[in-house]
């Protein structure tokens, strides 16, 4: 199956700092999503971004499908950004049935 690798596994920031999270994947995809899991376990979809660039407030994401990676940018981080960020992909050969998740990046933002 498709492999999804996220880096770094852990990241500690001071409030106000910027960060870049990376997701590498091993095969062509027709679906890539970024999620945030808060400390209480709730998963929230951040971006649907199989290619190109999107921005939503302090967050933005870029996927370079031909090179099989995606980046999530967090600017001016806040303590509420803490949690685990997951990248999830779906292979082109499948049709809407499953997302394969990476192991996540654990982000801690200190005040």
């Amino acid at each position: 199956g498709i492999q999804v690798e996220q880096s770094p596994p852990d990241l500690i920031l001071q409030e106000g700092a910027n960060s870049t999270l990376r997701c590498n994947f091993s095969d062509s995809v027709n679906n890539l999503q970024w999620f945030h899991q808060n400390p209480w376990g709730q998963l929230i979809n951040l971006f649907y971004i199989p290619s190109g660039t999107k921005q939503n407030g302090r967050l933005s994401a870029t996927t370079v499908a031909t090179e099989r990676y995606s980046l999530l940018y967090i600017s001016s981080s806040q303590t509420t950004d803490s949690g685990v960020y997951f990248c999830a992909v779906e292979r082109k050969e499948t049709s809407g049935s499953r997302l394969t998740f990476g192991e996540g990046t654990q982000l801690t933002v200190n005040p």
Partner: protein
Amino acid sequence: GAGVSQSPSNKVTEKGKDVELRCDPISGHTALYWYRQSLGQGLEFLIYFQGNSAPDKSGLPSDRFSAERTGGSVSTLTIQRTQQEDSAVYLCASSFMPQGSGNTIYFGEGSWLTVV
């Protein structure tokens, strides 16, 4: 409902017992997914429903696991003869259409299962 609802939120069961986990998706969502998350791990796909049928159940880890969906709405995940390695958070998600079309997927808060 307003979001994906799962019950129970927490379940402690003895090894060898059967458990049922329930998922009530967002009204009108045709696609429903079950995932499992072990402590400190990413999410592991279990099964996908489109309407009441399950075109992809390849993620179920053993024949002790089964799931059904009725009325195109509520789904039940059943684990028979539970083992300690079944301890995990079981997450249900739904989307208006299958994922490949880019529809946002919404997750419930999960059912925390502990097998003692």
